């Protein structure tokens, strides 16, 4: 598994909300073309880890490297521009903007994108019919597709997905898995926080288990310690 070259290399990450420290000394990696799961109970710190990567919370680390570049001191927009696409857990679609306008905001003016509208709508055919729809009047699943599409048009090398199946109908989860698998086949890397084992097992190679802001376990996705306390929720859903 570790033979792939490293894309994201994090060592000793700590993060705070105000004065409260939430993450303690986290270390993890994501290889090129690899999909890594971040597993843990509610409040374990998965979302915070992702926000820390994006520079959306106060953070400090011994090493924070993406594609060989130090991202520890970069403001959010520069992290994004280096090639990290972020899909937050509540999706954060711009509700007043239409689907087309939401997509447009993800694009970098002046930079050519692999992700033309045609390519996006091929991946998510359902979105094609919704182009003029306001983001606020879409279902949870549709918003999730749009959120992924919105980060894709920025040409990321790594997609960070925070609970992509939360509040999404099973049929749409299936479609989402299909889309993500196609992305992975084309070389995309992923960091996915999930409580839905179906999605994780279909896509991810490796997993990290978090508890109370610390890493507790890591290994291949098949070796996730079934029934162990630290992943109780994960295995219960299974």
């Amino acid at each position, binding site marked *: 598994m570790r033979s792939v070259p490293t894309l994201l290399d994090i060592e000793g990450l700590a993060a705070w909300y105000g004065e409260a420290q939430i993450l303690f000394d986290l270390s993890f990696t994501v290889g090129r073309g690899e999909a890594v799961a971040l597993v843990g109970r509610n409040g374990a710190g998965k979302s915070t880890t992702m926000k820390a990567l994006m520079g959306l919370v106060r953070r400090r680390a011994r090493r924070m490297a993406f594609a060989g570049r130090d991202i520890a001191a970069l403001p959010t*927009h520069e992290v*994004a521009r280096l090639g990290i696409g972020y899909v937050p857990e509540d999706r954060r679609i711009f509700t007043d903007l239409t689907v087309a306008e939401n997509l447009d*905001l*993800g694009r*970098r*003016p002046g930079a050519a994108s692999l992700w033309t509208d045609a390519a996006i709508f091929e991946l998510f055919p359902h979105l094609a019919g919704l182009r003029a729809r306001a983001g606020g009047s879409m279902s949870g699943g549709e918003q999730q597709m749009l959120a992924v599409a919105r980060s894709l048009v920025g040409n990321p090398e790594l997609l960070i997905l925070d609970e992509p199946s939360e509040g999404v109908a099973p049929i749409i989860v299936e479609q989402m898995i299909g889309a993500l698998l196609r992305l992975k086949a084309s070389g995309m890397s992923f960091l996915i926080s999930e409580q839905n084992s179906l999605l994780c097992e279909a896509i991810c190679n490796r997993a990290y288990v978090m508890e109370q802001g610390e890493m507790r376990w890591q290994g291949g996705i098949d070796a996730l310690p079934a029934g162990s306390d630290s992943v109780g929720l994960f295995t219960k859903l299974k």
Partner: protein
Amino acid sequence: MSLDSLLFQAVNGLASASGLFLVAAGLSIIFGVTRIVNMAHGSFYMLGLYLAVTLAPALSPWIGGAAGFWGGILVATLAVALLGALVEMVLLRRLYRAPELYQLLATFALLLVISDAVLFLWGPEDILGPRAPGLSGAVDLLGRRLPQYDLFLALAGPAVLLGLHLLLRRTRFGRLIRAATQDREMVAALGINEALLFTAVFALGAGVAGLGGALQMAREPANLAIDLSVLGDAFVVVVVGGMGSISGAYLAAVLVAEVKALCTALGVVDIAGYAFNMSRLTLVAEFLVMALVLILRPHGLFGRPQPPATTRARAEPAPAPLGRRGAVLVLVAVALFAAVPLIGQFFAYAPVLALDMVIAALFAASLHFIMGPGGMASFGHAAYFGLGAYGAAFAATRLGAPTPLAFAMGIGTAAMGATLFGWFCVRLEGVYFAMLTLAFAQIVWSIVYQWEEVTGGSNGMFGVWPQAPFDEPAGLYLAALAVTLAGLFLIRRVVFAPFGFALRAGRDSSLRAEASGIPVARVRWLAFALAGTLCGAAGALFAFAKGSISPEAISVGRSIDGLVMVLLGGVQSLMGPVLGAGGFTLLQDMVMRETDYWRALLGAVILAVVLLFPSGIAGGLRRAGNAR
């Protein structure tokens, strides 16, 4: 009144509405994206006007009259936009994470500095601008002559509205503005440089306000009072239209301007045999429109409900009871102040200064009561100071009431005003509350300024001298000291009573307080009324202390003085505002009197406090004490 004069005034009203709309729209856009209410927005309007009246005549000899006029407007607009960008980069960028109150104060400080910069550059005289070449004539409309330029302005408002609308809908910049208004973080996470966006938005908002001012050059002279009057009007418009809604701002601007125009058009009407000049009502009308809209739609015509105030990030420490040492210190201070008349024989000026300090202390403490425990930063506390002062002055001079009765009537006037205005204000939170209090204060100021028969208009009232035994400096001073101490004592008692706990609970989380059975709005309303009443006492004392009273007592400047006093001392304890009031009065007396540019100086002091001592001087001292 005839139909044609009504129509004439209607077009006139639309012309005024355009100027008002431009300022309000800029304010609204900036607030939407940066969450900062830019108090200096009136200054951008004023600068646009001053620059235009200077540039147009300067450019005309070179490029011709018409090109000079319109070129002057264009250059003025761009210059103000540029200044806006500069202000954002140098000042506001440091304030995005600061508490709202600090942002409001800092931008107000900017207003003060710009105001004095204009005074320095252009002098105190009003400056008349050139007429618009080609538009200086009049159109015959229903037998009346309507200035062409007014017609042009009436069209300019909707044109800018359309332009802004297209900008927001059709351009990437506009989409970014709309997106960032909803979720700035997500915009950054999509790779968009937030800092650059904020600078651009600020430049846009400032430029639109500058354009509003520049366009007025053929209509009104550039003058130094315009920044505050425009700001007050813009706040009314924004509150009525709904924060963040551009179309709402236009509708509100038209509504307010048309109601004013209607009052003017009605002219003198006969009400029950009494000839009454309706044009006097213009300012009250503005208030009535706002009151009506807020009763029917608390978030304005097109505004959306604000998200419920979340629990504060930083819990305020509970007020601590006085320790033994504190009690001794307070007693010593009281004794020292009570002894001031004794040294009056040697230092004639000491009692005068001490009286100012005592009055300021009551003023600041009453403001602190709603700001600290209440969490409501009023930007219009001077309204109640002024009502108290004018009430007492009117009773003493016009009604011939004995001094104690006149004093009581002053307090009563303030109490009524605070009860009335408070009912509206306490429904709003944060910056909305601040804007509404400021708008009310501006309205009180305008009424006092215009209602000459009762208030003496701009000259104010004279000969408000107290009767014996208060005609002696020592008598008045000791009475003032007693009143202030009683007021402070009352505030302290209330803060530690169940009512005070309810007030603080409402401040910390109105949802949770509401859920545990506290009628938050009523508690706030009572607190507001009490603060206004005590402030009125300070105002009444002020009137007797000075022997005269002028509209200056109600000016925004005085409201801000109060905020600075509280801020200087720190919001956490009652000692804060008292110390702050003392320090501020001394500073004002010793330094500000020496210069024509005291506004800029005050602005600099505010900026220094906001940027350097975010917890006030008392807080700073305490921290220093703890560190040791």
